[in-house]
């Protein structure tokens, strides 16, 4: 714990200090590092991180929820095997999984070759080093994080409620929105947080699939620490990143979780 909290406190302290030429630190209080965050260049990068985070979370939800739903509908003996199939990529190295997309996306990669061979394109597309490539990498990397919590809430969901809703005249769509969706909302929110947090703070994915032009906050922090050697500004960036993550997490635990806990037990009983 000492190795976790103390370093974090030092980073917090650094974020209020001044930079010395050559990577040193001047022990003088300043808010300059935080003011610098509002410059256009940095705002652009922060904005990109946020929307890529939202985009990949939304995409994971749109793919993950139906998949979890499909798995739960399969015969019992297949279900565990299917869940395992979802987990296996999570156990394999993240770097390796990200690299797999270089093989697919680069100019002389598999996708371009395939498209060229069926003559859809006549010159290779620049797929790698784009925000799209980052988004794909993030979705690919964190999809299991979305599926597993949703699956575990669906596992506890009482499907006789669906039959009851049908008997009362609701169609599939209405049953889903009024019964299934609200009762699995906790899993959905947990999944969204688990995807959003590492996506916003991503470092490897934009570094490998995004190139030098499309960087995210994570790369900016790395630049400040290892290249520009502006540790106070890097610290301020990290603090802002933590803030960006703590806001949704604490909001969830303080407001939504309690509310859902009470409503879902009520819903289960009625």
């Amino acid at each position, binding site marked *: *714990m000492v190795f976790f909290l103390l370093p974090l406190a030092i980073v917090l302290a650094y974020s209020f200090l001044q930079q010395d030429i050559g990577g040193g630190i001047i022990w003088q209080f300043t808010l300059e590092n935080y003011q610098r965050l509002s410059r256009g260049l940095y705002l652009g990068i922060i904005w990109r991180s946020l929307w890529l985070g939202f985009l990949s979370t939304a995409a994971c939800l749109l793919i993950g929820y139906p998949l979890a739903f499909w798995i739960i509908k399969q015969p019992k003996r297949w279900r565990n095997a299917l869940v395992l199939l979802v987990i296996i990529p999570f156990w394999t*190295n993240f770097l390796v999984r990200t690299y797999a997309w*270089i093989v697919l996306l680069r100019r002389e990669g598999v996708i371009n070759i395939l498209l060229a061979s069926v003559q859809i394109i006549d010159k290779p597309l620049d797929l790698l080093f784009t925000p799209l490539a980052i988004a794909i990498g993030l979705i690919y990397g964190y999809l299991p994080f979305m599926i597993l919590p949703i699956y575990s809430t669906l596992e506890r969901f009482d499907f006789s409620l669906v039959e009851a809703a049908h008997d009362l005249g609701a169609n599939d769509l209405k049953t889903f929105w009024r019964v299934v969706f609200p009762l699995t909302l906790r899993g959905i929110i947990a999944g969204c947080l688990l995807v959003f947090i590492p996506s916003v703070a991503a470092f490897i994915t934009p570094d490998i699939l995004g190139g030098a032009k499309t960087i995210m906050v994570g790369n900016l922090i790395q630049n400040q620490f290892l290249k520009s050697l502006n540790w106070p500004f890097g610290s301020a960036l*990290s603090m802002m990143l933590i803030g960006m993550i703590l806001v949704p997490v604490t909001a969830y635990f303080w407001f939504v979780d309690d509310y859902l806990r009470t409503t879902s037990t009520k819903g289960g009983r009625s």
Partner: protein
Amino acid sequence: MRLSFRSLRLRQQFDLWMGRIGQQWLYINAVLAFAFLYLPIAILIVYSFNNSRYNVVWRGFTWGWYESLLKGSDGLGLGTQIGTAGMGGSVLTALQNSLLVAGISTVVSTIFGTLLAIAMERGHFRGRSAIATLIYLPIVMPDITMGISLLVFFTLCFKLLETVTGIYLTLGITTVIIGHITFSLSFVTVIVRARLADLDPALEEAAMDLGANEWQTLWGVTLPLLWPAIFSGALLAFTLSLDDFVVTFFVAGVGSTTLPLFVYGMIKFSVTPAINAISTLMLLASMGLVIASLASASQSASS
């Protein structure tokens, strides 16, 4: 009356069709999602055997890229050295480093994580609930902030040490190990604590009533019951450590290149099928770990 009956029939018909389309769509989504998860890995593996420098057209089967990994040179004799871009060392050294770091950090974090879990669940002391919240922080915290905060911390400590005692230390394998313990500890604690919360306290009380002291109860009753959770915690710590790139990236120094750092160096240097080869080997190793853990889980479930 007739009209409304007919419209009801129509609505039912419509719902039925919608239901069928929904089923089809679920099925198609599942097929596409699994294809999305596995095709990139499959293609990666296939091209590791391709007898061509560029991952493009299939030019026949070869083991050359695997051989080149061991030799540390380009298997097809096309010149460049692989994977040594500013990193130094060979694959085998990197593998050794990875196993050493994973081994030590797993042992330490498993022991301390278990003790912490027991203290939190069974002990009564001030600030227990604060620690319970804090223990989740390293899990939620993005790895990049953990990496840079450890970097800042180690640098500051080394500077202090140098001015006070004159001993000069640099980042290296020890700092990597400490970094890995820092994030593994929380995972072990959370897993063991979850199991501990499910345990029937009556078992421990019974042991105490029968005259066992606290240590005997811990050794004889609690720990054997916790064993599966401790094992899965250790396994997770081991995997996380082998897998970690970001924290290692910031706290590693010269000579402490782990396998992921080595692979990163290769990717940054130039994309060759040798990376596919090392990726395939790492995939196989992690599959092996998954299968081993499943086998042991089913064994402990049946016994």
